[in-house]
């Protein structure tokens, strides 16, 4: 087990594509680090550079104290779980798990002991004699995990290991992998494009975009204090609502103007976002998490600012209700918004954006399950103003 570090590590392909730009990232000994980002953000490239499957164009990659830039994969003492599992189809589950140990010429008894131990942890004991093609997706995934575990390596590298499983199995394996990692205490770098996996599994999460590291933080910090619009929009599901807004001063207090609505900013909010007054009479991007919105009919008193809109769609999740509604305000249209829409394959939003900035913004609110809102209703929505996010329009940085 070891600390793993990227120091200004870059990857430039032959055609000039810069897949990874000066990545500085240290994964502490025993830490579970998740690399997350949309496809093409360089996360898999970083992982493969650490594995030795991709050359390092510039910078340094360390495993422990060793600089591994020039080392072949076999000399790096790391184990990897692939997205496709990459099980050897001509070998049984047992032989798949034992493969690396045999290559290392570990004594037979020792191999048997370690394979059986791994099989016990992963619930594979009854399946050891089967070949991969006789196994289900989840079983294959566990064999791939077993292959990594028996190595007792310096680090685990996992490249979207759950993306080929169905939703239920994914939730179970998510917990299993987390448990195994905690018990073994092996330094782990886990790549995923699924922000739910990132949030639930990682001690820390590194968000990447276009080859550049955006933010490294604990899941809570990432969620509540995103450093920029991209992180804010990427982390969280449903995604943060992004609106064009303006900062104005009236009667001595600062107000946020969104379409027809105006919110007075509380002192606490101003204290938490000290840069806001400097944006007086300028437009900014306002970020509202879905759970910061609630059906006003269910909120006591009127000390929360309100938005007026029309309900378009309800999605009942049982414990809560997701309500899509439109308000007379302009959605924020920036590169980040386009990129995030592209990443989730949201063609409708992309089409809208191509036609210029629409006059109406569609928001998603996470309402209490008691809400009586129906499609087509005119609704009032309360905004929990303390949980708002503010971003600079040009730089995308949080204010």
């Amino acid at each position: 087990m070891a600390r793993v570090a990227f120091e200004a590590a870059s990857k430039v392909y032959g055609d000039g594509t810069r897949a990874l730009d000066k990545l500085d990232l240290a994964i502490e000994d025993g830490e579970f680090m998740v690399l997350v980002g949309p496809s093409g953000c360089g996360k898999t490239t970083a992982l493969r550079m650490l594995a030795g499957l991709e050359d390092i164009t510039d910078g340094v990659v360390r495993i422990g104290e060793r600089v591994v830039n020039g080392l072949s994969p076999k000399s790096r003492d790391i184990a990897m779980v692939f997205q496709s599992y990459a099980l050897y189809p001509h070998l049984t589950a047992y032989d798949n798990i034992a493969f690396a140990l045999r290559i290392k010429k570990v004594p037979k008894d020792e191999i048997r002991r370690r394979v059986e131990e791994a099989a016990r942890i992963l619930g594979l004991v009854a399946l050891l004699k089967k070949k991969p093609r006789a196994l289900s997706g989840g079983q294959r995934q566990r064999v791939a995990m077993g292959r990594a575990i028996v190595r007792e390596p310096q680090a685990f590298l996992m490249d979207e290991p759950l993306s080929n499983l169905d939703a239920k199995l994914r939730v179970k394996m998510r917990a299993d992998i987390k448990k195994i990692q905690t018990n073994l205490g092996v330094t782990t770098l886990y790549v995923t494009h699924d922000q739910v996996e990132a949030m639930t599994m990682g001690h820390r999460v590194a968000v990447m975009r276009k080859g550049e590291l955006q933010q490294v933080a604990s899941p809570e910090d990432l969620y509540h204090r995103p450093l920029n619009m991209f992180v804010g929009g990427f982390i969280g599901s449903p995604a943060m609502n992004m609106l064009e807004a303006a900062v104005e001063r009236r009667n001595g207090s600062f107000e946020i103007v969104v379409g027809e609505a105006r919110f007075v900013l509380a002192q606490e909010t101003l204290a938490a976002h000290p840069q806001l007054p400097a944006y007086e009479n300028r437009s900014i991007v306002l970020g509202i998490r879905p759970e910061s919105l609630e059906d006003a009919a269910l909120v006591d008193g009127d000390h929360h600012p309100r938005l007026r809109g029309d309900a378009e769609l309800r999605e009942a999740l049982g414990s809560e209700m997701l309500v899509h509604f439109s308000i007379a305000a302009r959605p924020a249209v920036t590169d980040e918004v386009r990129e995030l829409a592209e990443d989730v394959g949201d063609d409708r939003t992309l089409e809208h954006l191509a036609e210029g900035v629409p006059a109406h913004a569609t928001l998603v609110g996470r309402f209490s399950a008691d809400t009586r809102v129906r499609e087509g209703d005119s609704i009032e929505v309360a905004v929990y103003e303390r949980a708002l996010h503010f971003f600079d329009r040009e730089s995308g940085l949080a204010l």
Partner: protein
Amino acid sequence: MGIRLLGLGARMAILLVFAIFFIAPVLWLILAPTKSDNALVTSSPFSFGSFHNVAQAWNHLDAYSDHLYRRWIANTLIYSLSATAITLAISIPAGYGLALGKFWGRKLILTLTLVVMIMPAASLVLPIFLELNALHLIGSVFSVILPFSFFPFGIYLAYIYYATSIPSELLDAARVDGCGEWLTFRRVALPLAKPVVALVFFFSFVANWNNFFLPYVVLADSNQYPITVGLSNLLASTPSFNPAVGGGGQSVNIFKPELALATLLAVIPVAIVFLLSQRALVRGTLGGAVKQ
């Protein structure tokens, strides 16, 4: 309804005509050794003679030049199996390297392989002859085995197989699991190549078995002939095909039934190899390697 039946009937009739057209010569050849030379011309083309005639034809054929026919079959087996063994040892790693390796000149080598593959073998006979002559190999078994050990089509088959059927993640997994390049090939890529090994084995063996022109040019001693050259030699010494020989065929006791038998027997090893390699060409060897 009537029209549909008519259409079906027409289709069946066309298929039947073609089937008969192609099967008739084969049937004639199979029946030929059962008849005497005379009956072959006089009796109905598809009549059966007797097994006695087959035995007699074999005795004549086997007696020809002191078991020379057996010698030719043995020679051909040695030539074909040796050249095929070398071909396999070269093509599989070469195709693997061309498909999955990253090295300078890869495209050039691949293009050259394809160009040589589409060149007719006969066009190279003269330069190969000159080369073998310069190396003093003319008349030795190597002059037949070595030129045919280079089998570009085999390399191409292996290349196609590795380029399309082996996911690169599988090789990456082996590398991370501690294999160097040799072990990655030996422990993962090679065991997965069974279908293409069978395919290359079959095509190479057949190409070698049927190889005629080169051995015809480089071998002088009839004891060294492969079966192809031997058969043509046999044909040339049969009066019914080559009246210039004279003697009415009695001198060698080789007539049309003997020739038919010689031809039929020469096909058997190829048929066996086909059956064996076909069994190994199992689909789905890669099932379960990666999620599709």
